């Protein structure tokens, strides 16, 4: 995407999202909020996969921590305080990412994929057996959080807070990726050994990326629990980790816009294919395999699709 086109499209997208409540009904707004939540989640994973070169298949663990944090902080039939529960959910996810990061960052490549997967599944199995978390059935969050006049259960407050969180996540990631930290992460992805040989304490950079990504995944999970009013162990599981990884790959790893687009495409597919069949994972998987083979740059680079098809037709 050209350097001038992108800010224009981003601005347009933002205006559309701001104005959407004027035109869309409840179904449309819920779907848009769902897309935005998944976009936050996908961008957080893209920081790891697309920029730092750490392919995690357990990223849902932190999404689940954020979601369960809201459940635990909500009074039985009342609303949690937004100002308390939101930061606590993010901090809990960050803390979980710090602990797990210290353990998994010793491995890399395929081992990293397997170890992160194993940790996600550990969370999943723990939650299925833990009474205080509602066990395998999960638990309800009866009311959305509120803070004074802001009640996420009323009007469009939830939608707009999610939109603000999306914009803030995007801006934060843009800033840190443009900073020396982001340049160093790309260097680590390209050639970690050379980065260390230049003097970078690469493990610290990776750990911080893991913690930031975990915190933002927790933010997304928090909103997920608030939107649907329910938490269950699936929120930690590999299906969700796999879905968000697909979003990142589909959108083109290493582009934040791509993660947003990937999230939108996947949520829409899930929504509409999911209506046709409960086994939507198979058609979706096929679509994604095709997309990844044809579009190494993801959906953000349509020119690459054209080139890829021409090259294929020549062979």
């Amino acid at each position: 995407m050209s350097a001038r086109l992108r800010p224009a499209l981003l601005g347009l997208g933002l205006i559309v999202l701001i104005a959407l409540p004027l035109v869309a009904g409840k179904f449309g707004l819920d779907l848009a909020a769902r897309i935005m939540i998944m976009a936050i989640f996908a961008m957080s994973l893209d920081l790891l996969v697309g920029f730092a070169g750490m392919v995690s298949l357990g990223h849902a663990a932190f999404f689940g921590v954020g979601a369960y944090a809201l459940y635990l902080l909500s009074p039985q039939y009342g609303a949690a305080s937004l100002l308390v529960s939101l930061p606590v959910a993010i901090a809990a996810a960050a803390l979980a990412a710090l602990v797990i990061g210290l353990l998994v960052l010793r491995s890399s490549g395929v081992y990293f994929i397997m170890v992160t997967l194993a940790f996600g599944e550990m969370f999943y199995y723990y939650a299925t057996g833990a009474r205080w978390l509602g066990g395998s059935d999960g638990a309800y969050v009866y009311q959305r959080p509120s803070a004074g006049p802001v009640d996420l259960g009323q009007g469009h407050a939830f939608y707009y807070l999610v939109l603000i969180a999306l914009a803030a996540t995007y801006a934060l990631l843009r800033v840190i990726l443009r900073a020396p930290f982001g340049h160093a992460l790309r260097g680590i992805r390209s050639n970690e050994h050379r980065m260390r040989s230049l003097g970078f304490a690469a493990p610290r950079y990776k750990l911080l990326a893991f913690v930031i990504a975990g915190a933002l995944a927790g933010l997304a999970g928090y909103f997920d629990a608030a939107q649907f009013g329910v938490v269950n162990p699936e929120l930690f599981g590999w299906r969700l980790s796999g879905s968000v990884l697909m979003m990142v790959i589909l959108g083109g790893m290493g582009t934040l816009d791509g993660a947003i687009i990937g999230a939108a495409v996947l949520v829409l597919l899930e929504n509409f294919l999911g209506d046709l069949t409960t086994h939507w994972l198979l058609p979706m998987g096929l679509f994604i395999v095709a997309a990844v083979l044809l579009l190494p740059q993801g959906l953000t680079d349509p020119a690459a699709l054209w080139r890829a098809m021409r090259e294929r037709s020549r062979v």
Partner: protein
Amino acid sequence: MSEPILRAEALGKNFGGLAAVRDVSLDLSPKQIHAVIGPNGAGKTTLINLLSGDLTPTTGRVFFRGIEIEGHALDRIARLGVARAYQRTNIFAGFSVFENCRLAAQARRQPGIRLFRPALAYRDINDAAGRAMALAGVESRATDRASDLSHGEQRQLELAMALATEPQVLLLDEPLAGMGPEEASRIAALIARLGADLAILLVEHDMDAVFNIAATITVMVDGAVLASGTPQAIRADAAVQAAYLGEAA
């Protein structure tokens, strides 16, 4: 002679049954070029790996300004001011030449994590990268992808990256190999000039260059030091003549 800045004491490295480096001691002093020569497989690269922290010695110790360096310390040694140019070019192939050098300068000037200011707003880092590119003669390729450079230019970039870290000690592993004759003599002259300020360990097969610019030469054969001394002493050494220079000449 001034206090050595980097000192190897009885270093040894075994790969399985193979003793690639055996009981090697040497000192690197500021403002001195110390060349290490020897046939292929003599253990020169392995020796550099032990000094840089790429490998942990099986036996022996390494000191930086009199303090022992312990543990697996690749990035820690680099932050002390020991820079390395690899024999097998080791660059960020997908990045621009400038970004390769900028990362190196960032490692030196902002080794801590900096999250908010744009990287390109650190003018001192940009300037250090620019100076290193100019010294090594790759500034005209600044915006090109490193992978698009010729083999010789990539060797120059390898050196530029080491220089961009503004080191006190330079470990150069065959920096002239793969360069055209003109570039090679230009880079040899640059290394000679750098030797006026830095402590340099130079592994090189170009004997003319080595005997011209080194103050001390150590000859390695089969992992061990055969002889060490001034260029004149080495040239006159009978064992060296027999084992190495004789064949090469």
